[in-house]
């Protein structure tokens, strides 16, 4: 990779203005993924001086600054207190402590990686991406649209939902072959996200609707897994075949539902 100029702006306005005015400019969060790219970057905009590394709790929300590292997120008391620790559970197998000390929340969201474990987990929480110019955007909308903007923070509604994360990996620290996050709001209101298909996490709407209509039981959890595995598209790559991913989806979704209810 070639970078002509490396800037560390002091304010988010400045970061945004470089991003939108300079040719071939690109944001650097942790830089761990950027560094793998073969791009020629005109101006690199490093956000580390913006004081966006924070995790705070307000009355209704958990707020996570964009340059918070995955390691901070993993061990933070606030994130661990809610949602059965799903956030921590989802990221704790990413490579190693040293990488998680570099990789940021902003980069993990903005990267929109198909394999992303964090996106899968956040997809079943009530999460919003706060962009500097655009303002608040639902996570799903953020993923589906292109934004030439700076992620400032992520906010997650502090509802009392239960959640679980499941994944299957080759070695323990490898990318997931499939990852699944499930949350349960009240009674029968579930959210189910399936990622690393290898495409990015998407929701299993039909399985969610099915669960709304039935009471919890092991059979219904399995049925929901089956429905999810049939409605979601999987593809094959060198890590696994589509058929295997489909099988895993069945099991992991039903397991997550069971875990939440037990």
């Amino acid at each position: 990779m070639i970078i002509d100029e490396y800037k560390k702006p002091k304010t988010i306005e400045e970061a945004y203005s470089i991003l939108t005015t300079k040719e071939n400019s690109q944001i650097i969060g942790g830089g761990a993924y950027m560094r793998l790219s073969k791009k020629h970057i005109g101006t690199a905009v490093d956000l580390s001086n913006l004081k966006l590394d924070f995790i705070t709790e307000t009355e209704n929300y958990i707020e996570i600054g964009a340059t918070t590292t995955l390691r901070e997120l993993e061990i933070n008391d606030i994130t661990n207190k809610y949602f059965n620790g799903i956030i921590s559970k989802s990221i704790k197998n990413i490579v190693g402590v040293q990488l998680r000390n570099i990789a940021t929340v902003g980069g993990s969201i903005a990267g929109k990686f198909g394999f992303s474990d964090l996106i899968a987990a956040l997809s079943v929480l009530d999460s919003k991406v706060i962009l500097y110019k655009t303002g608040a955007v639902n996570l799903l909308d953020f993923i589906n649209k292109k934004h030439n903007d700076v992620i400032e923070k992520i906010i997650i509604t502090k509802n009392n939902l239960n959640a679980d994360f499941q994944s299957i990996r080759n070695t323990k620290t490898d990318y997931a072959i499939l990852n699944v996050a499930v949350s349960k709001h009240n009674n029968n209101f579930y959210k189910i996200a399936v990622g690393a298909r290898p495409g990015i996490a998407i929701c299993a709407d039909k399985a969610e609707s099915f669960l709304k209509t039935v009471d919890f039981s092991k059979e219904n959890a399995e049925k929901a897994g089956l429905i999810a595995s049939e409605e979601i598209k999987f593809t094959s790559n060198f890590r696994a075949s589509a058929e295997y991913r489909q099988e895993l989806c069945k099991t992991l979704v039903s397991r997550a539902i069971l875990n939440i209810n037990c």
Partner: protein
Amino acid sequence: MKINLKINNQDKIIDIRPDEMLLEVLRKNGCLSVKHGCDTGSCGACTVLLDGKPILSCSYFAAKADGHSVTTVEGVQNKVEKISKYLVDEGSVQCGFCVPGLVLTTMGMEKELNNPTEDEINHYLSGNLCRCTGYVSHTRAIKKYLEDKK
């Protein structure tokens, strides 16, 4: 561009390319214990402590480290010797290429975790790959080290 870097407690002003990674800069500045093992942030051989926390210097832009403090094995020889005695006694320094990184991550772990279990040790150190030892001798050595330190 120029950056201020405290390397092993010495303040330095270093001229770097904007796209240079910390690993290259450290090696050029005499920290040859920092090893290049992969190009993808996957092996841990390049581990250094940045403000006391273990990071991968191959995946960290040198420009990002501006104003920060970096510790390599060269800067903490006594401490390294203390930990490594256990590793050497267990025969777990084979080719040794992974060891400086492993020792630094272990130092990071000591700071963060109190009385880690074997699983916690293995989890904390999982980013340090070793192809020679099969790891179990590392675990034995580090457990003993932590035990004796008490």
